């Protein structure tokens, strides 16, 4: 066995495995309640890719006409991507040279671009921002606040749960066993996207695909085995009702984790591998390819989940997009390659119509460089991919990549579309009614556009 591979396997072991715990309190799969019937009976899933740190999408999709390229080149200086390396998607724009997969997907009408979307409290123009009479999101340009607003689906500061959680709560009755399998997090850390839902997300790593005991590594009986594990589990069970709310919360969390491999027992048996998911040498945190492969694997066994969830929302977190001091070349390549591999996986599963991928990011970036990189911005391009996407189009008017243009406040784009309009388009495809959209996205009605039209209905 390759030493790295072995090490990875080791890293994958869950607590349960380590302690040889045999968890007895299985969730009841028996309670078969009928899910709230979605608008149609087919299966649908959203896969949200967070480009964490704020993606420089302006160096991913680049004007290629002589005149507009010249302006771009002048503005971006050393950071500008060479014109002759661009991969054309139409007469006006091209992807950067290492984004061949996204070019292919766009031309194959599987990928759409949404021009200039971002956090807003109400529609606002750059001029109005300058005049300061309209409300704008609090703490623009700060990573955490802006990312949180994207995760909450609301920039007013009045919402503290995730839009993914709220959407799933609308799509399922809480008694529906499928609800527990409807939100899935493949990232290293918990996500706010699913915070505050009636059920916690399935937060898992590859570890849970083949719940292995640590026995084969010597963690099992020799370190106390089942008896030790039982005491361990007993202590956490006891503390679930601790009068210290912090301890009680932690203990409940741990018990859920301990139960997870049991909850997933057998569901992933014989799960298939997919080709083409790679790990980039410059990636930080959990690689995008491995997270998307896990999503594909989960999708491949979706019908085995209790209650057979008909709607699922996945969260994938890709780090290292905060390019103050560098170009985003590596990141853009990983995104493009991973989307290509994922789309091929969906084709192999014959699920391309049923799965839609969308990108989210903290914010766009400054149009002008700061030398070697760019700073925190506001409006950004977003990418949507899948068989149900009306691809090969750019939705909305592409902003001018110029300082103080009618699209920009200094060198930061002022969003033309609110994130709510973007998300509502996708959640409407998922089957939420207009009424439900207003509940899930409480500030949606502040914006004129409820549907950007990039999804087939």
């Amino acid at each position, binding site marked *: 066995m390759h030493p790295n591979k072995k090490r990875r396997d080791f890293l994958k072991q869950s607590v349960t495995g380590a302690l040889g715990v045999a968890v007895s309190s299985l969730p009841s799969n028996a309670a078969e309640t009928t899910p709230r019937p979605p608008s149609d009976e087919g299966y649908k899933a959203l896969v949200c890719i967070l480009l964490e740190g704020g993606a420089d999408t302006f160096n991913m999709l680049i004007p290629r006409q002589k005149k507009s390229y010249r302006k771009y080149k002048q503005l971006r200086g050393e950071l500008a991507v060479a014109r002759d390396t661009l991969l054309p998607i139409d007469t006006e724009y091209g992807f950067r040279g290492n984004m061949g997969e996204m070019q292919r997907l766009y031309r194959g009408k599987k990928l759409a671009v949404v021009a200039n979307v971002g956090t807003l409290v109400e529609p606002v123009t750059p001029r109005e921002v300058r005049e300061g009479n309209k409300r704008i999101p609090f703490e623009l340009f700060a990573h955490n606040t802006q990312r949180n607003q994207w995760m909450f689906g609301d920039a007013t500061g009045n919402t503290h749960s995730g839009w993914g959680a709220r959407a799933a709560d609308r799509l399922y009755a809480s008694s529906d066993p499928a609800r527990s399998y409807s939100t899935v997090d493949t990232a290293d850390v918990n996500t706010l996207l699913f915070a505050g839902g009636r059920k916690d997300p399935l937060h898992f790593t590859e570890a849970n695909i083949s719940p292995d005991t640590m026995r084969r590594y010597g963690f099992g009986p020799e370190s106390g085995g089942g008896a030790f594990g039982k005491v361990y589990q007993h202590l956490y069970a006891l503390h679930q009702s601790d009068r210290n709310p912090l301890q009680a919360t*932690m203990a409940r969390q741990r018990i859920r984790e301990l139960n997870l491999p049991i909850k997933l027992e057998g569901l992933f048996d014989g799960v298939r591998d997919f080709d083409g998911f790679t790990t980039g040498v410059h990636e930080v945190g959990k690689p995008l390819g491995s997270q998307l492969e896990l999503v594909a694997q989960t999708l491949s066994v979706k019908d085995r989940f209790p209650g057979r969830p008909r709607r699922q929302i996945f969260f994938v977190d890709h780090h290292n997009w905060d390019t103050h*001091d560098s170009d985003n070349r590596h990141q853009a390549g990983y995104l493009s390659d991973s989307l290509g591999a994922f789309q091929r996986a969906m084709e192999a599963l014959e699920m391309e119509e049923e799965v839609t991928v969308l990108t989210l990011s903290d914010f766009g970036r400054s149009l002008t460089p700061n030398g070697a990189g760019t700073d925190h911005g506001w409006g950004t391009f977003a990418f949507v991919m899948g068989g149900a996407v009306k691809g090969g189009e750019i939705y909305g008017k592409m902003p001018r990549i110029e300082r103080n243009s009618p699209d920009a406040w200094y060198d930061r784009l002022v969003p033309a579309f609110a994130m709510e309009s973007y998300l509502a388009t996708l959640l409407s495809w998922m089957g939420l009614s207009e009424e439900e959209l207003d509940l899930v996205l409480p500030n949606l009605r502040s914006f004129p556009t409820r549907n950007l039209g990039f999804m087939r209905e």
Partner: protein
Amino acid sequence: MKRGEVEKRPSYRVRSAEEASAFLSRATFGATEESIRELKRMGNYRRWIRREFKKKPSYHLEWILHHAKGVDGTEDLKDDPEGWQRYSDALGTMQRDAWWDIVVHRSDQLRQRVAFALSEILVISRNGPLLSFPDARLSYYDLLVRHAFDNFETLLRAVTYHPAMGKYLSYLGNAKANPRSDRHPDENYAREVMQLFTIGLYELNPDGTQKLRDGRPIPTYTQQDIREMARVFTGLSDDNGEFPAEAAFSDFHSRTSPMISFEEYHDRGEKRILHGRKIIPAGGDTVSDINTALHHLFMHPNVGPFLARRLIQRLVTSNPSPRYIAHVARAFNDNGEGVRGDLKAVIEAILLDEEALRERHDPKIFGKFREPLLYPAHLFRAFHAKNGIHTLRQGEEKVYRYRSFNFNGTGMMRQEGPLEALTVFNYFTPDDGPYALKKKGLVAPELELYGKQGIDDVIIGLVTENSYVYRLFHITAHLQLQREIALIARKRYRRLIDRLDLILTGSRLNPRTKQAALHYIKRHIRDKQMTHEKMARLVIGLIMTSPDYAFQR
């Protein structure tokens, strides 16, 4: 304090071994039998702290250069700083070895614990542009060690001029705007030095609560301020004689010495910061402008409560009362001799506040979850782990030899390591916590690091000297368990549990947890293949993976 109550002079008397143990869990990398006894004998917490202030600092880079001996004809590491690749790779590996050895064995415990806390506030990381520059990171960590008991303004300056920070937050080589192009000065440090290192996003009351205007928090700065502040941090590059440095970061000296200024790249115009209220007049040079800006930040009324909350959270409790924060902020504002920013006064206030020492306030929520890194540190300390001679190989070649646990720490679980956060926001932020707690107005930042691939795995592997883990990772951290084994041999099970309870949790184990452990011993001590030693290991493992241990009170 209630009206009519007379303020008593606080007592710093050590009242019991239990209390001493709990105190040491906050002020050191974990209590030991010896450290509890020593503190108890000393009898006074303040005296203990003041003695710590005087101890000689242990520096991490020095540790490595001193300990790494060449083998097979290679020179000692300290003699070979220009054998760049070998040197850099070796430092990268040894960074963790140095950290573990120092936090476990060295006596300047309070300083190291505070430096570690500061490393999670003034964050740089191995992840990102510093990946291949371990010397820069080590030198930065040593800076935190050096200034842990210094003045905060001095610390902030040292941090700002350090090339590791300059590179990490991309203002090393940051030039003033070029009027002929659209380039603007890098805003990265301008923003984070305010948001994360000094004043935060919103104006604070002295007790750390947010000031409100029309029911909304009041931002401490605007994007315009960021733009102005970005112009301040122009003109710095590393000390290699060039700007912006094709050659940047090219040698040990430039990576570990303060950055220097290149005036032609500095924006000398007037800058207005903090809502335009503070003016840095035109004509200043790089250093005067930066020092003036840092001074304005340092003098901002937010810094006291901002830093107080963060340091209290790192050392004592996740949800300090406003009164506790106000007390520490007062110490920051004035150390009693009219000096602002004295970190010694801040640390004393944090560790000696009655909320910490006597658990007054709301005992139901007092305390914090231990960070994963602190688990093995405590395990190694409490049970006097012996390290072994480790030979560092590069490829097939044996390069350096030094004493080490050879434990990669919880970093190997992609969880936590010294200076290894994924972003400048650290492993967790002060406001993190599960939704269920946040709804109650509570936070539990460290829980971001709890979960699968958890620290419990690592602890069980380490405490049982699990053959797979030890062999695979060549760990050499041999626990000395003679006392524990003897107690088991004499069937003094209750005594064993009490002893572990005292050292590991300050006797905070839930009685039911103790009962369960006792029951476990009695039931399994006569199992086939069970030995006294094995049982000792299992009981320690049981306690250290219990929820009682996880929550430090």
